[in-house]
């Protein structure tokens, strides 16, 4: 990765130490690469969760019940 594509992010030192210990024996050669890996995993999981949620976002039966009640009171429902 070229230098221009990398930025510095500050984390508390004790956390960096903890990560360093955790890195040992994992094949990651630096705290940065380990953190990058973990963050990518976390973000990807979050995106997946959002997608799953979007799929579930179909109009639920409960939604339908509530909206029907409102429409009836508005005089809109046939």
């Amino acid at each position, binding site marked *: 990765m070229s230098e221009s594509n990398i930025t510095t992010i500050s984390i508390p030192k004790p956390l960096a130490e903890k990560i360093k210990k955790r890195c040992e024996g994992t094949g990651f050669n630096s705290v940065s690469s380990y953190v990058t890996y973990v963050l990518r995993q976390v973000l990807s999981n979050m995106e997946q969760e959002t997608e799953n949620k979007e799929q579930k976002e179909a109009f639920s039966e409960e*939604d339908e019940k509530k909206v029907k009640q409102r429409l009836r009171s508005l005089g809109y429902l046939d």
Partner: protein
Amino acid sequence: MAKVFVLGLDGAPSKLIFEKWKDQLPNIAKLMEDGCYATLMTSIPPSTIAAWTSLCSGKDPSDFGIYSYTKRVNFEYKENRLINSGDVKCEMIWDIIAKKDMKTIALHVPLTYPVKKINGIMVSDFLTPEFNDKCTYPAEFKEEIRKLFGDRYMFDVDVGLASYKSIEKHELLERIFKMTDMNFKLIYHLLKTKEWDLFIAEIIGTDRILHTFFSYIDETHRNYQADNEFKEEVLRYFKFIDIHIGKLAELFEQKNQDMQRNNENNNAAKDNKDTSKNNNTIFIVASDHGMAKMDGRINLNDWLIKNRYLAMKKMPLQAAKLNFDDVEWKNTKAFAVGAYFGRIYFNLKNREPEGVVTKKEYGKLQDEIIQKLAKIKSDDGKKLDTQFFKSQDIFKGTCKDEAPDMIIYFDNLIWGVNNDVGNTGLYSYKTTKGSDDAGHAPEGIFIMHGKEAKSKGNLGIKNIIDVTPTILKKLGLQIPKEVRGKIIE
């Protein structure tokens, strides 16, 4: 190229805004005088959700398959299913502009719940059942609303789902003002903090106040009383809207001037990479339909029974919703649904389970029903200006087969429809269907103001499907061939 801000005043009628109240709404009048305006004819049918979807897509209901709040399920003899945003079968303007990386903020555009992913921000509409994760995109934006209003952001006046009709009038009025105030606060917050190329904000309060207070302001309404206490309240509300319109116009004007100065001083447009910030803002004020007094409702299914188009195995003991199980289908040619306008469905062979009407008979049956319904007069014997629309004449889109076979506007919507069966006589007044004060009229409003709005003055009549191509043109984009409307320059 411009940025476009659309303020949607739901149900604002051209007759009140352009004529009766023009002198008392100075900011709207100024936009009209400096820019252009037109009576905006709504969609057929004039349902809020169909009309808004037309306005924001440039297509008609047969293109996206929305004809009312409910949809028949495979033409079976079952209760209609309630529709939601997932039923909209077409590309909306925010989808079109997102392809060019342009951002939209869409607030409360009817039929956007549950919200879909857009390039920008979306907050759903009055059909939002509660303040949940499905009412904002991105979902996190909900927290921003919560910071501004707590959990009390109002999507409609009937918070807590109290019956709309039963809300006491003073209380209702207060809620309408409060809700609209929240709407504008959210608009100003977004204008201050977010980037956008297109901003569409719908105000539902205008529709609600007209539906429920029309008999207090319209001298020709049957229930009008000259000395009523709410006589000035609707105008007071529209003056409140007008002040906000003035504020918004000033904001856009200021921005345009600042930008012009910047451009003149240091040729900023060339240097600034983000050219979207250097666009003039066009301000559009539009409504999805108009509003007109309602004299009463025609008992359409009872009429179909009396005229032997609808056969019943048994009638309810008192007026009630048409129960499909009570219908003798083998002897039924047609039945109706509807509240403000009538929708007649035929019991069509090879479409309905026990259909009897053949394709050959179809047009003849339409003509026969039209001929008879056209003879219906008002309860005091006056001729009605009833409009009929045959499905095959007006619907050409990909969802045309789902359309009702006929649409009827009794007295051009001055008379609504009651589809209950077992009423006494042909007319209903007080029904269970909400407010009887006013129904939708076809004539809405369109006002366009801004340096890049070339037309000036009164443009006569335009169609709701013209709004989307007009916006696209102002944003400097090509109009996709599926968009039916014409550009207003």
